[in-house]
């Protein structure tokens, strides 16, 4: 680690937030397209319909933003550290799906989410030690 730890973690949180916006946006697009994908041909048509929605492009924009913020974080942080901390997007996606998409998150998912958070804390502590 060559950069200040707090700043690097802030950048990785930012990439995770961008990833979450991207995933929730694409999920909202996929839900808006009432379409059953049954084979390769319908998959292409499904993708084309999604790409016609402005929200899909906003989502794709966020995934590129996420990539470049991560690249900036990687100029200061070890890959093994940054990639592990980035797993917090799983936590954000669970929260976002619950809050914005009103999805039902079972106890098992919450338990897994807590295990991920403990893992992230350990990785964070290992870098500050």
């Amino acid at each position, binding site marked *: 680690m060559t950069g200040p730890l707090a700043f690097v973690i802030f950048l990785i949180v930012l990439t995770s937030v961008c990833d979450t916006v991207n995933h929730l946006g694409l999920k909202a697009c996929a839900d808006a397209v009432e379409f059953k994908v049954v084979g390769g041909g319908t998959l292409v048509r499904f993708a084309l319909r999604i790409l016609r929605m402005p929200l899909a492009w906003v989502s794709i924009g966020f995934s590129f933003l996420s990539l470049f913020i991560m690249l900036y974080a*990687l100029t*200061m942080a070890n890959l093994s550290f940054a*990639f592990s901390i980035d*797993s917090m997007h799983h936590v954000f996606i669970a929260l976002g799906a619950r809050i914005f998409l009103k999805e039902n998150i079972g106890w098992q998912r919450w*338990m897994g989410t807590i295990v*991920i958070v403990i*893992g992230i804390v350990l*990785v964070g502590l290992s870098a500050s030690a």
Partner: protein
Amino acid sequence: MSKRSVPPIILSVLFLNEAVDSLAQYCFKRTALAQGAPSIRSLAEAGSFVTGALASGYLWLGIAAVALVFVSWTTVLSKVDLSAAMPVTSFSYPFVALVSLVFLHERIPAMQWCGILLIMAGVAIVSWEPEQEKGGAP
């Protein structure tokens, strides 16, 4: 539901996906290393960082690897259930750690390995869905 069982060939493809994804992360780290130690304080500096990164062959190799994984992943999902395939993606955490250790010579303390294993377990728990309960995603 037969799509819950993952045949060995598909399992191999899933693990190969994680290996290719780790390669993509390695490429992104190499892209970052090639940028030196930039400090971004203005939009112009952010712009020149992005242009610098876009000029790196490693970035495009990484993006190509991500695209390859995406295509392979969607193909796999037409053969098996998402909740059966998804737990395998948790292996990306130890895989990236191994790539960092071997190819980037990063030092990974024992506590970090413990954290990585917990993250892996957590991701597997989050994505694993017992057969009887089919809530959530439509």
